[in-house]
């Protein structure tokens, strides 16, 4: 059995690409994604686990990447906002965010997109209430929830 260490190799798949990197065990997954891999679409909002700006998919489920050590994601498949659509493309949800003006400053948007994408994968035509429950872990300080909820409901209806 390997003993406790302060640095460890992490091997995982991110947006379809396999990466392996030695990291300090204290490094949070969000910093691994942003600082080590340079994928800065995932944001750090509150750093206390409340705001959801750092939401990514871990094996298909939305999680807050500031409440996970990078080493805990060993062997996982991670999707960040960069992995939703190809360069220059938008998913139906991203298109709906554009059409419904579902962002002002845009800081919370990557997290909103990741939570809403996970909802639409398990529930392709959610009701407004279901959208609101799914986005409980994502805070928008521009108070733009109405347009965000409208956009997710509309994206569901276009499927």
């Amino acid at each position, binding site marked *: *059995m*390997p*003993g*406790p*260490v*302060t640095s*460890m190799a992490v091997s995982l798949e991110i947006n379809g690409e396999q990466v392996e990197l030695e990291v*300090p*065990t*204290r490094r*949070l997954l969000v910093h691994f994604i942003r600082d080590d891999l340079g994928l800065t679409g995932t944001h750090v909002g509150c*750093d*206390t*686990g409340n705001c*959801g700006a750092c*939401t990514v998919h*871990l094996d298909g*489920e*939305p*999680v*807050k990447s*500031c*409440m*996970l*050590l990078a*080493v*805990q994601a*060993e062997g996982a498949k991670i999707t960040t906002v960069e992995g939703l659509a190809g360069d220059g493309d938008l998913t139906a949800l991203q298109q709906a965010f554009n059409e419904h003006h579902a962002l002002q400053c845009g800081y919370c948007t990557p997290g909103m997109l990741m*939570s809403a994408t*996970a*909802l639409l994968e398990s529930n392709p035509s959610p009701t407004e209430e279901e959208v609101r*429950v*799914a986005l*409980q*872990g*994502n805070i928008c300080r521009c108070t733009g929830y109405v347009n965000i909820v409208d956009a997710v409901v509309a994206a569901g209806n276009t499927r």
Partner: protein
Amino acid sequence: MLLREVEYARPATVEEAISLLGTHDGARPLAGGQTLVNVMKARAAAPDVLVDLGELTELREIGFSSDGMLEIGAMVTYAQLMGSSEVEVSRPILAEVAGTIADVQVRNRGTIGGNVCVSDPTNHLPPLLVALDATFTIRGGNGERTVSADEFFLGVYLTAVGEGELLTKVNVPPSSGAGDGFAGLTVGRHGTYVVNAAASVSGDAARIAIGCVGASPVRAEAMEEALAGSDFSEEAVRKAAEGLGSSLDPPSDVHGSGDFRRHLAEVSATRAVMQAAGRRKA
């Protein structure tokens, strides 16, 4: 945020985990991390060694014992409780309450074992598991022991799980026709509880626990006695709850005064018992 440097190990078996916890000073198990990682950021906790339970698949199982107890592994997440057919047929209140904890992302990572081992007085599951008369299986270097819910929650952030030990399972008796209820007041829709109450009513007997009013869940024993043989009419339940508030010594904080919590305890207990009684099967 930069955490204090911490050693990390990812054991492959429960035995390895217990050995690591027993041989390293300042070692703590890391379950879903939805509390521990956050308190480490705030440096309110600074374990020297984290023993990650993530690979221990045997702790992620939900099943039944030969005598019909619902056995929930300590690493079962809230999301798993919500989607479990075993929970649905046996004790659906666990899925119902798990679905009101925090938010989707936290429910995907947070675990039943973490929730009870943190023993935060405002957590949802401690009073619920006291009302359901759950038992807790703890494994250590010298074998396994099982303690009752009343013996498990010892205080704020303190449980019967000792140094070098690990909670492996939570065992919940089959409902056998009992109805279960949960009620309280939160800050925001799925926020922290100001006061909560859990009740289980079987035939004409009730088991009631109140959360957020003491260091650990408080059994409402006088109310239970007053309800023995009751018809569980709203009037009878309200009457039985009278005096519960004045028997408690809850804290005052920004969310409510001690007096307000005494009032909420009676209201919450009444609602939880009414809900439980209405769900009984004859």
